[in-house]
């Protein structure tokens, strides 16, 4: 590696340095060079030794934690596709047509990832070049999260527009990585949700349902709607009504959206959000390495369960009668709890604040999805809302610390 380093140092670097003909691409070169080689910068003042951890490794480990969800999602896209055209049935083993499923999934997922990274990193490079600062690693995670929470059949141009919007409006206008108020990936998702409501509903949750192969006809009993989409239909219907009973049958044992299926995730949904199991594996990695906040993840889940229990007690419609555990393994709840709510920049910063932030986030996620069927994905709305509330939560936590100090002062003044 000495040779490579020497080559870069002597042959490549001068072109990009001040006076070199490629000087205006310095930030790009700098980003790639520091990616390949941690610079030989030494500590200048203060501590003389530094912890091995840096932002690159931190961000990389978050991506590693997303890999189980990504791989499962890739398989599931193919799985849903072959279910929809009737080539397999739900009783087939997961390994039937395994390779075909993965290939179909990859054909859908890889372009999404490429578009997301290309758009986001392109903007980051340009802005970093304009401002003359180093490129931050933050988008490495956002750029992976965005494709993972997209509907499978979303047009690629929409992904590009949403990514550009999120990077510019949610992040760069606030000053870049570390300065944003809202989670960047969720902002991309919310943008699509509100800007293209028509395209973001219906049967885009599975790949190619209108495929010419079937002439637009779905296999028997297969609709391609998500669990939350089905449940939304029960709102406003009598609990034991025909519609409700029909939907609830799918959520009973042996149904398409049984507790087990929702947990495993072999159901329609966004690219990688369906599997609570994969999200939990990611959670284990994040908590184990200390990168994701266990306080936020656990309190988020508890918040969701509490709301589920409350709804069970009310039982005003069929949706409310879904068990609390079933509630939190459906939709994007787990994925949001593990990968979205824990974003350290947009979450609460204080340890006490994290408990409150996570709990309310979980609570609101379930509340929104049940109360307002127009927003089947309550998690997105809840986390974005809590992002906005996080500074306020921290404010009160810190105020109580300040008051404690003031009390101590007046107590000592009273003694003296």
């Amino acid at each position: 590696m000495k040779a490579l380093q020497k080559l870069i140092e002597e042959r490549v670097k001068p072109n990009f340095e001040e006076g070199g003909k490629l000087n205006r691409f310095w930030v790009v070169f700098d980003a790639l060079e520091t990616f390949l080689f941690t610079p030989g910068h030494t500590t200048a003042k203060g501590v003389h030794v530094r912890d091995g951890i840096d932002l690159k490794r931190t961000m990389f480990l978050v991506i590693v934690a997303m890999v189980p969800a990504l791989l499962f999602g890739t398989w599931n896209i193919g799985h849903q596709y072959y279910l929809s055209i009737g080539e397999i049935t739900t009783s087939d083993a997961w390994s039937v047509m395994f390779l075909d499923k993965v290939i179909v999934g990859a054909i859908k997922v890889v372009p999404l990832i490429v578009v997301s990274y290309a758009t986001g990193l392109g903007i980051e490079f340009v802005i970093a070049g304009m401002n003359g600062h180093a490129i931050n690693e933050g988008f490495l995670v956002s750029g992976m999260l965005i494709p993972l929470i997209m509907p499978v059949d979303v047009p690629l141009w929409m992904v590009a527009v949403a990514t550009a919007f999120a990077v510019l409006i949610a992040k760069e206008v606030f000053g870049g990585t570390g300065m944003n108020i809202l989670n960047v990936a969720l902002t991309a998702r919310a943008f699509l949700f509100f800007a293209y409501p028509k395209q973001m509903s219906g049967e885009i949750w599975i790949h190619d349902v209108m495929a010419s192969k079937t002439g637009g006809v779905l296999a028997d009993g297969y609709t391609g709607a998500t669990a939350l989409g089905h449940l939304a239909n029960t709102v406003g219907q009598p609990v034991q009504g025909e519609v409700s009973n029909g939907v609830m049958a799918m959520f009973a044992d042996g149904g398409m959206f049984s507790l087990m299926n929702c947990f495993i995730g072999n159901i329609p949904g966004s690219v990688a959000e369906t599997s609570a199991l994969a999200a939990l594996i990611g959670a284990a990695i994040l908590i184990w390495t200390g990168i994701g906040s266990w306080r936020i993840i656990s309190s988020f889940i508890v918040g969701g369960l509490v709301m589920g229990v409350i709804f069970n007690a009310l039982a005003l419609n069929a949706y409310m009668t879904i068990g609390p555990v079933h509630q939190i393994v459906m939709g994007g709840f787990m994925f949001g709890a593990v990968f979205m709510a824990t974003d350290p920049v947009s979450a609460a910063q204080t340890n006490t604040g994290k408990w409150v932030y996570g709990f309310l986030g979980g609570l609101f996620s379930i509340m929104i999805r049940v109360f307002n069927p127009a927003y089947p994905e309550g998690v997105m709305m809840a986390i974005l809302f809590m992002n906005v509330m996080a500074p306020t939560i921290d404010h009160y936590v810190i105020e109580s610390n300040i008051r404690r100090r003031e009390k101590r002062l007046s107590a000592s003044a009273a003694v003296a």
Partner: protein
Amino acid sequence: MPASVKIRKGLDIRLKGTVQSASHALPAADRFSIHPTDFHGLVPRMAAKAGTEVKAGEVLFTDKKSPDIKFVSAVSGTVQEPVRGEKRRILRVDVVASGTDAVSHPSVDPTAAEGDAVRAAMLERGYWPMLRQRPFDVMPAADSRPRDIFVSGFDSAPLAPTAAMVLEGRLDAFRAGCAYLNSMLPNGRKVQLGVKAGDDFFSSVSEADITSFSGPHPAGNVGVQIHEVAPMNKGEVVWTVGMQDVANIGEGLMGGSYVCKRTVALTGSRSQPALLRTTIGTPMADIVKDRVMMEDTRVISGNVLTGSVRGEDGALGFFDQQVTCIPEGHEPLFFLTKGWLGPGFDKFSASRAFPTWLMPKGKEYDLNTNNNGEERAFVVSGQYDAVFPFDIYPVQLIKSIMVGDIDRMEKLGIYEVAPEDFALCEYVCTSKLAVQDIVRKGLDQMIEEFA
């Protein structure tokens, strides 16, 4: 039984190059040097002209703001032209040693010590600069009246020597020092001494109120001990004194010539560790001579977290009792082998993103000075809190300093802290921020505000 406190937050960085307890005396140096820059904010006014002869214990310079505070020479000899930096700021004052003339002072009776007499003696004889005060982590003014005096009886920093090592045979002097310091406290209060749990070296010291501390670094930081025993409020002043300086004050006020003994631990992977008995003001070159592999080595006066590099011909830091020698790290690191994506068996990390936590507890690391990454904005949260055992929000305090919000700094507890208390925050920082420097700037802003 002394009161005991368990510190839960913190981190012990395990480095190679621990010192063993057998000490030996370093030959008397041919030069005594004092860096006015060791006393933050001090503007020295030279009292002895270059070329004049001084006796040991005679004044070299005084504090311009508080002329009663005198800095004296530890040796007799010839005063040199001060080494100056930008704007003619005095960086170092040297005395080339010759002869053994010394100013001799009468004894101040420790049992009947009067506060004002002790204060006058400390100012006159050159012991005042051994005091430090909080808030602001500076030398106290000559008329400063402290609420308490805190002494940490152990150093928990990486590779630091133990109390038994640095105070060997000096416990009586230490006790006398405590008695003198007690006389300057109001209402019959005593010096607050923090000792390491399980260490009975100080058990005979009845002149101090003892609290025992257990847990990782920074348990031995005096700031942490103040926070646990009697936290500081706005308007209060607390003095802190290093344990060896308590013994110096004790021995010095008992009469005779100026005492500035210093037992120094030479440590770190690039050194042959040794425990050396010398004095304050000894040139670093004398300490490292023949004991350190100098090539590509950083020689630090103090520990790896708070120490300083003394420059060419520099002397041991005034308050330092340790010298640490570690390899420099200016090799670029290929990302897959040694860099950010490498396995990292040789890196010591507080996070579990590296296998440090899988290694046996006794494993010692040979850390170098590589920054291990580039500076970034704050991204990760909760990292500082895990190594910062104060009831203070460190990130919020640092942000208030960054934006220069005096009112907020005060509310968030800046009076209680010194830069050294943030050293571990700086170590663990993913974004590689210069946290101690920021805290120092915040303290300076506060000083200006009150000036």
